[in-house]
């Protein structure tokens, strides 16, 4: 039974909360109260006002005015049986959580890399990426058709590597075939990327012909689909990638890459002539990406032969740009911008450019201890990879075996692949979890 309250009771309460003014009190209309206080509006006050006025279905607006804030409260319709004097809420207000699915018009192109003997290649398997109709891992909107794929890097010459990575590759640095094999057999790579960096005139200026031989070696060493990367030298790459495409005829390699500041036409033509997929690479610029893709369409490159690389910057060194750039492209594509509706490749190995990934100690004296670099480096690669995966990445080029494995594992889980990883734990048990000494 609600207790009867008198006007005096109300005045007491109002005084307690320093209510200065009560104006426009009208049973039919809105009630406005100006209360000067520093805290939140006390519930008991509201309850009492409510019962006093006998309104449960009318809007009560209590506006709390302080120097720094005005707070709006109260939706009486939702109030559980509140009555004067009763402070303990007895039962939960029933509620149902509902949220709509996101509807998108666009779909990302599905691209298959590699070709088996039935399609004129020699790969043991193919890898398909793309095809999404929703944001990455938003399976409640639409199941993602293919999980992200990991290609582990190898190079056509020994290269300087961070200490934490070098140990894994020391024995194969001189031999790209063995290197590629190790990536697949020991590190579980879905694909292998061979970077023909020695062709750079500033490095070894290896000829296109020599480079093509390296590609042949790699194709013989592994059965997985491969990515063929140039040195990044815009003048030399067209010739190098052309020769590489030719020796790899029919294998549906990913040719990396066509870029606006080079003769992309020549690369596009080579990819088409010899049956490969082309990587369309731009630098953190949506419009440049649209432009380059349109040029490729004009050259007659079919949509299913295009993957895009909007550029990866490392955690702490521009990851925010890379993340937002990829997220924006993916959302634009899902909204129907077909210029951008392609699977996305990310050069996650860039993460090793961050000095936190490799430097022994912080050069900044006031910093807290950085701990061993060997532990930091892989995490920089993992975080860079996973972050771009959540933004929209479909293919990750990576370097550290543990990083590659970890990114694979988490993206598989988010994708919803069968994993034997569902250990039953109480979801709130962490509160009482006792760390071992």
């Amino acid at each position: 039974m609600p207790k009867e309250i008198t006007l005096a009771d109300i005045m007491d309460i109002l005084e307690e909360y320093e209510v200065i003014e009560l104006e426009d009190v009208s049973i039919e209309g809105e009630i406005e109260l100006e209360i000067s206080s520093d805290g939140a509006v006390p519930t008991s006050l509201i309850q009492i006002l409510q019962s006093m006025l006998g309104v449960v279905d009318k809007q009560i607006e209590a506006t709390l005015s302080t120097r720094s804030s005005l707070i709006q409260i109260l939706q009486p319709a939702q109030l559980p049986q509140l009555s004067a004097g009763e402070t303990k809420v007895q039962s939960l207000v029933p509620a149902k959580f509902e949220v709509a699915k996101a509807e998108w018009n666009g779909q990302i192109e599905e691209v298959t890399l590699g070709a088996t003997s039935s399609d004129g290649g020699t790969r043991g398997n193919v890898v398909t990426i793309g095809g999404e109709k929703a944001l990455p891992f938003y399976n409640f909107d639409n199941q993602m058709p293919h999980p992200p794929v990991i290609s582990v890097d190898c190079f056509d010459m020994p290269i300087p590597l961070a200490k934490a990575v070098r140990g894994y590759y020391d024995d194969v640095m001189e031999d790209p075939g063995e290197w590629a094999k190790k990536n697949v057999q020991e590190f579980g790579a879905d694909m292998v990327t061979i970077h023909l960096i020695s062709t750079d005139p500033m490095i070894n200026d290896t000829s296109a012909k020599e480079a093509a031989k390296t590609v042949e070696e790699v194709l013989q060493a592994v059965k997985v689909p491969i990515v063929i990367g140039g040195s990044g030298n815009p003048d030399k790459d067209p010739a190098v990638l052309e020769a590489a495409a030719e020796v790899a005829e029919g294998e549906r390699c990913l040719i990396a890459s066509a870029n606006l500041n080079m003769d992309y036409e020549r690369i596009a033509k080579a990819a088409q002539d010899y049956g490969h997929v082309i990587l369309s690479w731009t630098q953190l610029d949506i419009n440049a990406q649209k432009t380059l893709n349109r040029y490729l369409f004009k050259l007659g490159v079919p949509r299913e032969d295009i993957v895009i690389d909007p550029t990866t910057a490392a955690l702490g060194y521009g990851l925010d740009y890379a993340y937002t750039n990829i997220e924006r492209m993916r959302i634009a594509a899902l909204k129907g911008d077909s210029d951008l509706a392609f699977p996305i490749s990310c050069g996650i190995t860039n993460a090793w450019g961050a000095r936190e990934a490799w430097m022994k100690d912080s050069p900044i004296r006031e910093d807290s201890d950085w701990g061993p670099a060997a532990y930091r480096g892989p995490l920089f690669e993992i975080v860079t990879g996973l972050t771009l995966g959540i933004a929209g990445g479909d293919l990750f080029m990576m370097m550290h075996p543990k990083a590659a494995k970890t990114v694979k594992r988490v993206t598989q889980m988010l994708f919803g692949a069968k994993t034997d990883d569902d250990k039953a734990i109480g979801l709130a048990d962490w509160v009482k979890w006792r760390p071992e000494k």
Partner: protein
Amino acid sequence: MRIGSPMEIWEYLPGTNCGECGEKTCLAYASLLKDRKKSLEDCKPLFEPKYADKASKLMDLLAPEVREVKIGVGARTMKIGGEDVLYRHELTFFNRTALTYDVWDTMDEAELRVRVKEITDWRKFYVGEFLTLDAIAIRSVSDDANTFATCVKCVAEETDLPLVLCSFNAEVQEEGLKTVSDRNPLIYAADKDNWSEMLSLAKRYKVPVALFSPDLNMLNSLAVTFSSAGIQDLVLDPGTYPTGNGLRDSFSRFVQLRRAGIGEQDKQIAYPLIAVPMTAWQVLEDALEASYWEAVIADTFILRYADMMILHSIEPHSLIPERTLVANIYTDPRRPVSVDAGLREVGNPTAESPLFLTTNFALTYYTVESDIASNKIDSYLMVVDTDGLGVEAAVAGGQLNANVIKETIDSHEIGKKVKNETIVLPGLAARISGETEDATGWTVLVGPRDSGRIPGWMETSWPPENAS
């Protein structure tokens, strides 16, 4: 806040263009309010009684889609929630994911104090400021009220960071709360069983409270119950499963909650969210593996809508990437990426001090500047306008070249400051050292590739041997 045009805000402003807010017109101020670059308090006249109606309407209009909740008191108070968009490019994210690291009440006191201090004092320099951690979660492992209270008291003595009190046992919770209720801690958590007691506690001590339930109907129900009872400072925990399909489902719950709050403006559920990556420690035995996996979960939920999270590893390899990612995701994408070109003085340089050259990309500039400053190298730092590109990209793209260097020297009259006419180029700009000598007539030295190595380089290479 769902506002298409500043006019929608302008309607409710006094309209006198008095300028007290620092803007020339009410409309100019309205457009800043829309971008959340100014706050309503800046318009003092609005708080005069005659505008009360307008003020309250504006308050309503401008309230962020996700409620903002404050935890803690004083300088290190943390604000969580208060977000208006689902993707950072749509505006920006405002209150960074608060990284909260745990301690527990069965720790021995000395260890406890050390750990609390480490969390409190941790810092890392990044783009012009020190990154720090946000809060400490105190877990009651003992489930004993006095043990918990002693621990809470000890932590409170040692830190000014906001506190999160973790226990599902209301009696334990209350003993802890008593000792620090003036610190406005977050109590974790009310669930389907203990909610009634927790609600009383939150009311009595006027503290924010976390609600826990992986069942979203139940979570919604808890939220409505609490808010109807006048408790609006809520943080929702939909459960963080560390692995497998459980992780996938947790991901989906976070996204759906935030979508309901921001996308569908469902006020009932539009509260900050809390993730618990430390559940990784329950399934992984090896400490390194667990810390890696914890960082993986943290990464996932920093991106997908956790406004705060509770973590366990305080090893540097965990803290650095976790905190850096938060810094990256929560930087305002509208902020300029470059600093002004010109000549900066680091320390107290004299005419004999070295002159270092770098680019105007903010990340590059602040990195180099702090490397020099923190090693107490008195010097000049000449900042060249490279359209906001870092050294290597600017050399490759041609923005950093001999001519811009010469122009910078001339326009900032750098010759008047330094006597030795010697420039130290970044190692990554070695390629342009010859042309720079030709164009400027100055001596050009090539420094190390990373500015962190400048101190070592100074020992061997400065002052230059041929210096006159």
